[in-house]
């Protein structure tokens, strides 16, 4: 005899979303770096910041920071990023 089981999984379809197209060049672009507050993050990001300007001609690097790596970015941080209207955001992990 066949058994009938109750599905124990989350049955919702995965939410759909897609990233905007990649920039073809970062020359002259305004780039946001989101520091997730991991130890040593600022050391790594300072270097990325400098490289973006010196080597890739990025016109402006904007720096944002999550209050803690342990939780998702609060809406206030996301709003600040949106207001700055960067051409791209790099969520910058570091440890």
């Amino acid at each position, binding site marked *: *005899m*066949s*058994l*009938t*089981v*109750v*599905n*124990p*999984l*989350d*049955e*919702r*379809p*995965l*939410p*759909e*979303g*897609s*990233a*905007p*197209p990649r920039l073809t060049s970062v020359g002259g672009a305004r780039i946001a770096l989101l520091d997730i507050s991991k*130890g040593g993050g600022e050391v790594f990001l300072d270097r990325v910041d400098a490289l973006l300007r010196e080597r890739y001609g990025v016109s402006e690097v904007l720096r944002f920071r999550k*209050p*803690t*790596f*342990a*939780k*998702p970015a609060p809406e206030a941080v996301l709003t600040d990023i949106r207001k700055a209207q960067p051409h791209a955001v790099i969520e910058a992990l570091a*440890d």
Partner: protein
Amino acid sequence: MLSNGVVAPPVPGQPLSGPALLAFFKTDCPACHLALRYLDSLSRSLGSGDHVVGVSQDEPASTDKLMRSLGADLPLRFDRDLEASAGFGLEAVPALFLLDRSGRVLASSQGFDKADLNRLGGELARLLEVPDPELARTGDGNPDFQPGCVSRHLEPESEATAAEIPDLYSRRAGRASRIDLPTEADAEEWCYESGYADPLPVVPPTVERVERMLAESGLNPDEVVAHVPPNFGAASAEKIAANAVMAGCRPEYMRVIVPAIRALCDERLDIHGVQGTTHFAAPLAIVNGPVRLELGFACGSNVFSNAARANSTIGRAFQLILRNLGGAAPGRIDMSTMGNPGRFSFVIGENEEVSPWGPLSEDFGIEAGRNAVTFFCAEPPRPVSEHKAREPKVLLRAICPVLANLWSYRVCKRSEAVVVIGPEHAATLDRGGFTKRDVVGFLFENTGVPVSEYDGDGGEGTHEAGFYDECVIRGVRCYRKFRRPESIRVMVAGGPAGKFSAVLGSWATGPRGSQMVSYQFA
């Protein structure tokens, strides 16, 4: 959507001959994928002729790729300019239209709905004077209903689309689907292959078992107890029950599991972060109150291991729920570098019967004698052995260096700790007149890291030394390990013989990390 009785606008390609079921779809819509499987089998059952026709809103290449992955070969049309989609008044896909011989709409449906599929398939069969095919059965492994996606012609102009915002607040969820296992299937193997389990065998969550579990909870099956991070899957009573069955729980354990799932998903505990960390942390549940004896929780010997069904299976149910509803499975979201054996199960009862002090839950304002579950996101236990000490201070001095090593030796003011005092140690402390407050006070005052360890080598914890609090411990200048006495919690558990205790360190703490939570229940 075109109303019934209206003559439909032309479809792309050759005019249709005879009654037909048109199905608009797009390739990146999961509900469309579901619908196409059933429509393909309907098309096959009707034989030759364009009676079931898919209308793709996408290019032939991506459409063909999808058809291959579905193993489907129903006749297709391509609505490249999306004029037909607009003309049929689509809002969402999949969108089905049953047309008669003259192209008039007889019936329609949007989204994936087995009842609609069966109704439209049945009407088409009647028009063609063939037997009614039973198309989509409840319990065949697919949901009965799934909302569709917005029709391609109504998508926003932006080249990016935001993912749906997770549902955090609904108190009711859809019912869990029922799945009829193939008669030849081995049920345990089937559950494992379906991704229901951790790597251990599970008890198949049959309808009867889940219903027995639910009856004990006193909840409606669709009642949502919590939304489980990080994916925020709804932990409905029915889903909790199904996972508890799989973990091997008895129905009466639901009185602990339900309030514990609420506690586990309390934002203060930040299970969201714990599930995604590379650290060792896993949620440890500590049970207090009469329920320990009523349900047979291990509080004594082997309290951290495999001594009692209640501890082992309830802890496993928590982990299965986090994995199956929260989505944090190892190798996907859970990328812990070393992991933690507590990710199989991590539940202890306090040995209140031999404790000279009040229960742990009292620290959180819950009256002694009440049932409570307290969560602490913990590293694995670190052992303390002290078989010679006859005085409380000598004994506690054996615990201090273990505490000093939490997180990383030279990192101070970051960790919290739960110190599980073994019964023999508790007796020594009690004989020496030490209250719980005295124990915590001594451990706080006497746990530090010598300043001489900070010699400029740049190791972890050394850069923040300027923020640490200096103190002198036994004549040595030290940095105090803990931020405040409340960073250390003390409880009693373990067996009667053996002068051992255990220390458990935390993950990130405080409002920016994980805070202990304690929930009272009946």
